[in-house]
């Protein structure tokens, strides 16, 4: 069984290495990029080096193989204050059914006020507003293959819509984690948002084409097709120290997206009695900012539940910064 997962890991490595490398960053060429924003305060504070660190319900946003580590049942919610008056959030509920494995449902969403429509006739605003909706709905399943290797899979619906133009698409996340047992060393990888090409619904008048705008009636055109933001994540983490009350963990991720050059993230986490946690990280290939900081509390509430409250600050350079809060309940 362990060999099989190794083969799977090797296959994924192979897939990535044979993916033609870009000599430049093909930024801004895919849709659904809200899915690439790091979800949750813990992962964000670790500089998003979280492919192996995410456990429990929040693992669906990083690597579904981590779902198996969260105990029986978990509820996770997160809210992020994002630049330009936007909010980004997610929620996941995981449930473990013994040997059968762990199931989870999850959602990611971008929220903002309706945006004012501006047009050539009314450049300062028509007085009308349009709404946007960017969200996913996912169903995940994860289980141990061996006592050291877990795998997970998410199938999700991705939806993006602006002013009655949008798309709905299915995509898949697939991941695995290998726990070596040596100083807590973990190796993990995931493929996120793997799906078909999409096309926005509706049509438009192409003013650069006389066949489209000159005939009466005008002949609307279909929109072009685009890819979803496919990401290959490779991560590792190790406990630099794990004695009595103190734990210090370091993590590193390499991410290969289809819309940018390789990303390298590093993070560290210090925990005191697993109750108070301090985190920091750095995103090296980030265009703006890169430094992340965070802290968390973990406490038992009554005797049947544990509560985690976490906060993260991310420096976004010119785009200012973001604050993330997340709450985890294990029961």
């Amino acid at each position: 069984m362990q060999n099989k997962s190794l083969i799977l890991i090797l296959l994924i490595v192979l897939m990535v290495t044979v993916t033609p490398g870009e000599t430049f960053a093909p930024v801004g060429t895919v849709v659904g990029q809200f899915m690439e924003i790091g979800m949750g305060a813990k992962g964000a504070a670790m500089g998003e080096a979280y492919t192996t660190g995410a456990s429990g319900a929040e693992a669906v946003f990083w690597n579904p193989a981590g779902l198996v580590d969260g105990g029986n049942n978990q509820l996770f919610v997160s809210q992020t204050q994002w630049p330009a008056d936007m909010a980004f959030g997610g929620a996941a509920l995981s449930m473990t059914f013994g040997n059968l494995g762990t199931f989870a449902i999850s959602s990611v969403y971008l929220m903002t006020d309706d945006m004012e429509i501006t047009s050539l006739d009314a450049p300062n605003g028509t007085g009308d507003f349009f709404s946007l909706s960017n969200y996913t709905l996912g169903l995940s399943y994860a289980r141990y293959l061996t006592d050291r290797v877990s795998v997970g899979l998410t199938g999700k619906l991705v939806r993006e819509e602006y002013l009655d133009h949008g798309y709905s698409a299915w995509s898949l996340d697939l991941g695995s984690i290998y726990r070596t047992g040596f100083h807590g060393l973990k190796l993990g990888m995931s493929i996120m948002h793997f799906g078909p090409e999409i096309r926005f619904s509706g049509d438009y008048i192409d003013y650069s084409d006389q066949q489209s705008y000159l005939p009466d009636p005008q002949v609307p055109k279909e929109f072009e097709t685009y890819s979803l933001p496919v990401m290959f994540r490779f991560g590792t983490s190790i406990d630099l120290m794990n004695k009595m009350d103190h734990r210090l963990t370091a993590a590193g991720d390499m991410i290969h997206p289809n819309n940018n050059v390789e990303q390298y993230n590093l993070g560290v986490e210090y925990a005191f009695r697993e109750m108070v946690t301090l985190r920091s990280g750095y995103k090296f290939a980030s265009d703006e900012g890169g430094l992340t900081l965070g802290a968390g509390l973990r406490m038992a509430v009554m005797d049947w539940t544990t509560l985690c409250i976490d906060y993260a600050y991310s420096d976004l350079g010119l785009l200012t910064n973001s604050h993330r809060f997340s709450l985890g309940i294990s029961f």
Partner: protein
Amino acid sequence: MIMKQHKILLTGLVLILLMSPVLNGADAEKNHFLMRKDAYTADSPIVESDWDWHKIGVLWNRITNFSYMGDDAYTDRTPSCDYPGGTGNSYLYRGTIWLSAFVDGEFHSTQGDDQEFSPLTPVTMYTGDEAQKAEQESYAEYYDVNAPLASNHFPLGVKVIERTYAWSADFASDFIIYEYDIINVGIDTDGDGYPDTDRDLDEFYFTIRFDGDVSKLPHWGAEYRFSNQDDHVVSNGVDWEWIEAFPQMQGRDHGLTIEEIDSSMIMMFDGDNPEFDAFDGHPDDFGNPAEDGTLQTPGVLGLRILKTEPKLKPHSFHTCHIYNDPGTDQETWDRMISDPTFEDLLIDPRNNLPYPLDYRGILTFGPMDVFKAGDTLKVTTALAVGSDPDSGGVHSLVEFVNIMKMAKYMVDHDYDIPIDELIPPAPNVEVEEVVNEAGEFQGVHLLWDDSPESHPNFAGYIAYKASEKTATGDLLWVPIDTFMVDETWPPPLGKKASVYKIFDSNVEFGFDYYYTVQSVSVEIIDPPIGVQATSMRDPNAYYPISPATPVATENLDDVKVVPNPYVGSAIWNNRIPSSANPWEHRLQFINLPADATIKIFTIDGDFVDEIHAGETVRIGEGYPDARDSVAEWDLLTRNDQEAAPGIYMYVVDSPSLGTKVGKFVVVR
């Protein structure tokens, strides 16, 4: 059955035999000759063939040092009476001069198109202070004393100094003057290439042989289709009655009188080739209408002998065509001197219409009884295309005749035309945005001063606006108001006493507009240039504008992205994209401070592109700059990839006003 096959075979063979001289003739026409210096002895005065171009006016043409007007090449052709210059719409195959005389009672001729002139100097172009009489001049010499490229040539012993003059000014941009100094230099008896023996020439004639191809495209195949075979050639020899022979010209008032009849012109224009329909499907392809019906070759190409010193009389006008060009001096004599002296139209008996062919016009002046050794004959001609692009035909003919009047006037006055005294200057134009008390944009004021009115020839103003470009990238000017002193006068005054003001509300932010006001002259009779108007692009009068809000000085709250969402395309760009005027997506950030830099990011923070206030995505001559309160994005990423649909973030960074983060949506 077998007999029938034989018959077909035999007929085919006979046809091929009959056709072969024609085919050879056609091939010979295609052979463009280029002299090589190594063909001559080192001490020969003959130099290599050389050429240059007049491209400053509306008529563009090639100038050579071997008596060719135009460029008769079929591939890599350069302007050859291209009109309007730069469009590639060509009217001329080639024109040359023929000189002829009697020597010892026998007729001899020297013909430029038979390569009987050899170059003596390269073509030299003069402009600016170096130019004596025109804005651009050329100089070249050639002679017929030694013509190594011609076979069995009998040299008359003449040298020609050819000067050409061209202008860009409106009233002189449609013609090019050719001035020939023909000198009887004598003949070369010792074979060194230099004349050494004087000889008088009897009954000396000067001839222009003119082979227009309306319209000759730069490819042989296309020309066949495009009908060098359906031209007409006429002269102004007897009267203007011939106009009525053309159904396309009949019954239109041309106003030409017997005063314009002096047997000095060759005129060529495109006829109707009955073998081919026009591109618009109409069986009549007179003027070569394209599919949209616009005439591709509406003009009349021609030439006029304006002046001869000593004075020569018109002698004859004849035509020939690709199948009966004279091959010997005797045939030339027949064609030039024989009756009738002035040839009439060749009428096709089948339909009673003028017969279209690949004509050459042969216009001869003379004879000079004796052209003495050492004497000079000076001939001045003008080459022109008169074109009325809307209706062509007789209107183009009238244009042509008027252009030639102007050319004659200039020659008669030794090119000394007091332009500023004749044509009033353009006014000084400004365009201002109009905002009401609530700060809402209302339109623009077009303002101009009354400075042209002190000019004695001032007659009025025409105000124009252009809001679109054609596929060639030219502005589509539309007159918006006309004010003539004797009709509608005066134009509305603005606040200042000497400044006129008209309001245009049909203006929107983000679009490009071009304004100009022309000064129009009264009908100018001396010189006969008629009503003249100042240039649309006169730097004082031409005013492009891309209206936008004033530069923000308060805060960044008002910064907007237009349109938002951007759905596929926006109408404010050019709607007739072409390679000369390509389509670009334009997304505007408005209400900016002038020092703003905008960085665009994807929703997850990838840096996509950077733009600056005052930047426009449009590249090309004549686009108004975006106002400093506007920055435009072409929807291309920093790697010139098309940006994907979705929500984007932007950061406006202004050293004076701070920073603002915003968002916008692209759907495509």
